[in-house]
């Protein structure tokens, strides 16, 4: 009995020491990323070539990674967080988990796309849109506002992905602009009207193949589908909300350095790289990202509607907030 216990203790100890020996590589940078994996791969490869710093990436859905970062707390191995939507960064900022970025990094990007307190910087943006099936939506009058989609005329014709990380900012935006009661009413309407999908990819694919007439997505999902299927495979197009309607919300993706970063220097270099002309060109020309580069002067992919023709609602990062109210409202409406 005694020798067995001793043996197993030895075994556990050696396993633990093995575990200790493996991840201890201080020269490399650890990136938690909610951005699309292929995009991040391109950027990381380019950054490694340019800087000689090696980057290891953990991928996941935005709120999921934020939850993981919060659970890890001080023990987190992460140096940089690259968000898919700004509220994720606002949530980390609210918990005082991000360090202030140097003025030079912040200055590259127009201030309205950055953290109000300077703890994260905007990298790309994308527009909220409606994807419309050419055949199914032929006789339908397009909605003037996002809120119209709660009306009875859209019953069974609408697709949404309420648990996608991209849907939360939309709820937060409606709440910020129209108030709590109107938002709840709108969500209730969506609950009655919509087919629910798990993510925006599912919504875009379903509308394009003709399962449902229209769907709420971010603009780049359709461009990606086009790359994947070729022009022959496309049976849908985008409808842009106009006149500063909340439906034309601009989602900002950005990055910040964690206070607990083990390699703060490299982390700052990476974030500053993301806002550099070099990285922004990689993003613009990747033919896979289809988001708007936020560095002024870098032209986005030609398939996108020109950036200066977008009419997003007037909403700053502070007002948009950290999405903390979005999930409870979705729950109340039965969407989550």
């Amino acid at each position, binding site marked *: *009995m005694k020798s*067995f216990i001793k043996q197993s203790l030895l075994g556990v100890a050696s*396993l*633990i020491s*093995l*575990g200790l020996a*493996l*991840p201890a590589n201080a020269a490399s940078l*650890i990136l938690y990323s909610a951005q*699309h*994996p*292929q995009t991040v791969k391109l950027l990381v490869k380019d950054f490694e070539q340019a800087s000689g710093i090696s980057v*290891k*990436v*953990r*991928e*996941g*859905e935005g*709120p*999921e990674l*934020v*939850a*993981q970062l*919060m*659970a*890890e*707390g001080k*023990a987190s*191995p992460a140096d940089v967080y690259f968000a898919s939507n700004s509220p994720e960064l606002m*949530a980390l900022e609210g918990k005082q988990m991000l360090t202030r970025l140097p003025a030079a990094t912040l200055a590259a990007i127009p201030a309205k796309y950055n953290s109000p307190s300077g703890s994260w910087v905007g990298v790309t943006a994308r527009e909220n849109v409606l994807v419309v099936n050419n055949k199914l939506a032929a006789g339908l009058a397009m909605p003037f506002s996002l809120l119209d989609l709660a009306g009875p005329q859209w019953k069974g014709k609408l697709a949404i992905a*309420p*648990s*996608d*990380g991209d*849907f939360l900012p939309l709820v937060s935006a409606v709440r910020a602009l129209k108030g709590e009661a109107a938002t709840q009413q709108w969500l209730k309407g969506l609950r009655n009207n919509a*087919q*629910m999908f*798990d993510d925006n*990819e*599912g919504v*875009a694919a*379903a509308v394009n*193949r003709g399962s449902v007439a229209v769907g709420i997505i971010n603009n780049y*999902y359709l461009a*990606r*589908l*086009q*790359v*994947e*299927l*070729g*022009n*022959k*495979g496309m049976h849908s197009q985008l409808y842009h909300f106009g006149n500063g309607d909340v439906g034309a919300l601009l989602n900002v993706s950005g990055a910040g350095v964690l206070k607990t970063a083990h390699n703060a220097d490299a982390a700052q270099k990476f974030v500053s790289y993301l806002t550099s002309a070099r990285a922004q060109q990689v993003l613009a020309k990747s*033919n*896979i990202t289809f988001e708007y580069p936020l560095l002024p002067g870098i032209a986005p992919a030609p398939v996108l509607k020109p950036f200066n023709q977008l009419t997003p609602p007037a909403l700053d990062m502070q007002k948009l907030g950290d999405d903390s109210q979005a*999930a409870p409202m979705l*729950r109340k409406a*039965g969407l*989550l």
Partner: protein
Amino acid sequence: MAIHSLMPGRTTHRQGWLFAAALAVCAVLASPLLVIIWQAAQSDPADFIDMLWRPLVGSLALNTAIIVSATTLLCGVLGLVCAWFAERTRLPWQGLWPLLSVAPMAIPTFISSYAWVSLSDDLQGFPGALLVLGSAYSPLVFLPVSAALRGLDPALEETARTLGLGPWRCFFRLILPQLRPALLGGMLLVALSTLSEFGAFVLLRFRTFTTEIFAEYRAGFDSHGAAQLSIVLLLVAAMLIGLEWRVRRQPSYERRAKGARRAPPRLELGARKWLVVAGFVLLSCITLLLPLSTLAYWLTQHGDAAVSPVEVSAELILDASSSSIELGLEGAALTVLLALPLGYLLARMPGRLTGLMERLTFLVQGVPGIVIALGLVTVSIRVVPSLYQTQFLLLLAYAILFLPLAIVSVRSALLQAESRQEELARSLGLGSWQTWLRVLLPMAAPGLGAAASLVFLSIVTELTATLLLSPIGTETLATQIWADTSAMAYAAAAPYALALTLLSMASTWLLMALLGRNAIDRLATDGHTATGDASHV
């Protein structure tokens, strides 16, 4: 000691450490569950009630109940019927049918769901979910039932037949009762796996508690909501396990015959065998051919504008494949190793304590991988930070997730390896370890092989725990497929999906061939091996 009073009969030194080992395994298993309960308990009771007392939860409960019962029934019938025909009737290409019956579980449900849903939208929701899970999970019944069929004592059946029992009555009155532990154990696994299924339900737009836990986790910024919903799943899983406990009795299934072990006889079906073959072929078309041809379709479907820089190189596929294989092998070894003490205790000394421990392993099966993974993240960060984000932690998660799969097979394998042989070996002077190595393990090899193959397959197709716990930089075939399909690069995902499917199928074949059938054939043709070995000492 309190433990001793719970244990049946005599307790030796050796059994003492077996119990200790089994209890240690259970402690590891229970840790993520305790974290979930602790997290849920921390939340405000009013919050808890708000979360659970909603109309949505009612419809989730209904969906969950319907799909769990339908899938379990379908898989029970399919698995039993296939196992019977594959093991006990004489068919052309006899070796092919068991393979085809197990192969569907090699196709990840998130791949077959995509195949079906891209065929027709009508398959969204319940019909598609039943179709996909019925295909994927019936091997969970097939494997233990066919192992049990192989190990049945032919003498009993022959006696019954000579006494005038017809084949049907013989099946229902003699064979089916003997298959009960394997059948019910398999069905319980199906029920619990359905309870924690995620990928297929998401693609088929069928909402259950598990999909909701994910949604809650993804949208909630913390895991409290997910933990609260998980408590419901835990309760449902506990109910299913209790139900199975009540239904299953524990008779002895040891062979009583003293003679050499023979293969059970196979029934001659005459011309009707072609009907059975047609049935197998039709089933394989649905469970295998269709998902695989959709995969092949995607392989040829890179759009004409496809200049996307998504890299698909032989090197990357090889890298991902080798990570998958490595994790699968190590995880299967660890899981079967951890399953041995409990499996042995369950087979040799079934009692209240061992029964409780077995139920604990099942409880974990009903909880989605992501919940276990989250629990492990919390445990490792707070208790053993040096384990956090190491490969060992991921292997541990696999072991926790798939231990019930292993235990079902390990237990029935050891049940059928006669305890008298063990006693004989020991009376002839073989030590404990020697008895294990030279008598018990060879006799139990087919079942252990089935256990290892099941766990390996489950690991290489596992997605959610892998995503959360894999050491940074480790990419497996499953995570690559996920990354590509979530960017809608279905064509880019296809080579990985194909590699994963081929890998799973090859491993199914290899493990069944090496460990399962050969061992049985050897025992069947060379019946004295096990006894002979021991008596030579």
